């Protein structure tokens, strides 16, 4: 009996250094993510790194793997802010189930945003882009149809963005993470599309004759998303 106890305590003692280096990566220091309620006013707070934000206010997503992570973080910020607003002011013509499901989608996107923020701060300290300011003036959040149309745009764009960015990642673990997220975005896309028109989850608008979903280059995705973001984004070096 005492033998078992002793083993257990030795086990815990020995395990300590193995846990420590992983936890020690200053994770908690950087993980202070903003709550969904303030997502519409994602504050730009980058005041000491003029490489990331140029004097004219352009946000440079950066190069290499960090560039890809910042690119994903930018898109997830946009999606998270959008669904936070959907959740805060749900369209009157949403059903109870739809409201519940969109609250879940809002949580998924907020998690993606907060995860990238934490991962970039941990793995590439000082290289994260600031919080972005979304522009949703084209969306009528009181109307289900307007919300669904915007959601479809964001989700299809997100899928195409991840599909096109995977090849730029050099770290296998990041590629797996991107793969773990993109399939959830594709599930969202299919759900939203079916709400707009049942059966359109994977129609010819998004899937080609080879049965392939879209894949878009970072600069093209940023061009498509730019009208929803106040800060000008520069994706020209992402993955390069």
């Amino acid at each position: 009996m005492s033998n078992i106890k002793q083993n257990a305590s030795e086990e815990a003692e020995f395990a300590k250094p193995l846990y420590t280096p992983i936890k020690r990566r200053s994770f908690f220091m950087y993980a202070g993510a903003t709550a969904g309620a303030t997502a519409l006013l994602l504050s730009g707070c980058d005041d000491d790194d003029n490489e990331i934000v140029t004097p004219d206010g352009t946000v440079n997503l950066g190069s290499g793997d960090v560039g890809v992570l910042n690119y994903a973080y930018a898109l997830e910020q946009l999606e998270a802010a959008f669904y936070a607003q959907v959740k805060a002011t749900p369209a009157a013509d949403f059903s109870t189930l739809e409201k519940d499901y969109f609250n879940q989608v809002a949580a998924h996107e907020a998690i993606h945003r907060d995860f990238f923020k934490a991962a970039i701060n941990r793995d590439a300290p000082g290289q994260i882009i600031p919080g972005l300011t979304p522009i949703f003036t084209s969306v009528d959040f009181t109307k289900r149809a307007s919300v669904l149309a915007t959601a479809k745009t964001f989700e299809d764009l997100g899928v195409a963005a991840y599909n096109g960015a995977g090849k730029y990642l050099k770290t296998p673990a990041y590629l797996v993470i991107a793969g773990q997220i993109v399939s959830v975005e594709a599930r969202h896309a299919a759900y939203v599309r079916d709400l707009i028109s049942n059966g359109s989850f994977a129609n010819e608008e998004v899937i080609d004759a080879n049965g392939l979903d879209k894949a878009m280059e970072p600069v093209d995705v940023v061009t498509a998303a730019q009208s929803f973001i106040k800060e000008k984004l520069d994706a020209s070096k992402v993955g390069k």
Partner: protein
Amino acid sequence: MNILRIIEQLSEVDADVLGRFDSRRAVFKSLGNTAKMGALAAAPVFVSSLFSKAYGQTTTPSVIEVLNYALTLELLEEDFYKKMTAAGKVPAGAAAGAIATILKHETAHVKLLSDTIKALSGTPVTNKKFKASAFPADYPTQLVVAQALEDTGVRAYKGQAGNLMSNSALLQVALQIHSVEARHAAHIRGMRQQPAWIPASDSALPAPLGPVYTGGIREDNVIQSNVNITSQLGTPYSANDAAASFDEILTMAEVLDASRAGGLVQG
């Protein structure tokens, strides 16, 4: 030789390094015992066996092997939807339309993968059929199997992405198929009044669905890249949202296991 440093470095490139060992507890216990015995001289042997156990059984498959594995799954899916169509239980209208759309995509994937394997001077697998004895007679159970196949496909492609990093074009095509499978999975789940994404509770379902959501990394997992999503992001998130916001991989061996797709292949 500092094993802790090695594991730390491995964790930088392989987020699941600890998950590869039988269990963290077992690893710590082994380490503890080794240290207790003072068998420092034996440490390299011990470390070597630890890593060959974690990584050894999965020597990196060739690109052709990965493509043939994907083709096997696509042939299985294609034949399943052909059988489903032929069985005549799918209601006309939206349901039949959706199954036709999905079948069309699986057929396109079979052709694309076969052509690609041939172009790379490989030999595409053929004649992989859905096991006739496992084909359900009733429509609701057919949808259960369809969900199992699609969600397995999503996990299977995801599990091979790392093995295609040497070829950007092939990696991108695999990703473009992967998200189509996820769209299929979402729609089939909707036909069964299930959420489009995978709730944590799915990992506890009975067979045939349960095994689709378990494995070395279960779909109810809430830890990504050493970050506990529920508690370490500044804002607390529910275990269900944490699990559903990230899909998980299955290894080739896990997919081909008899409890999953491997048990549905004829012969």
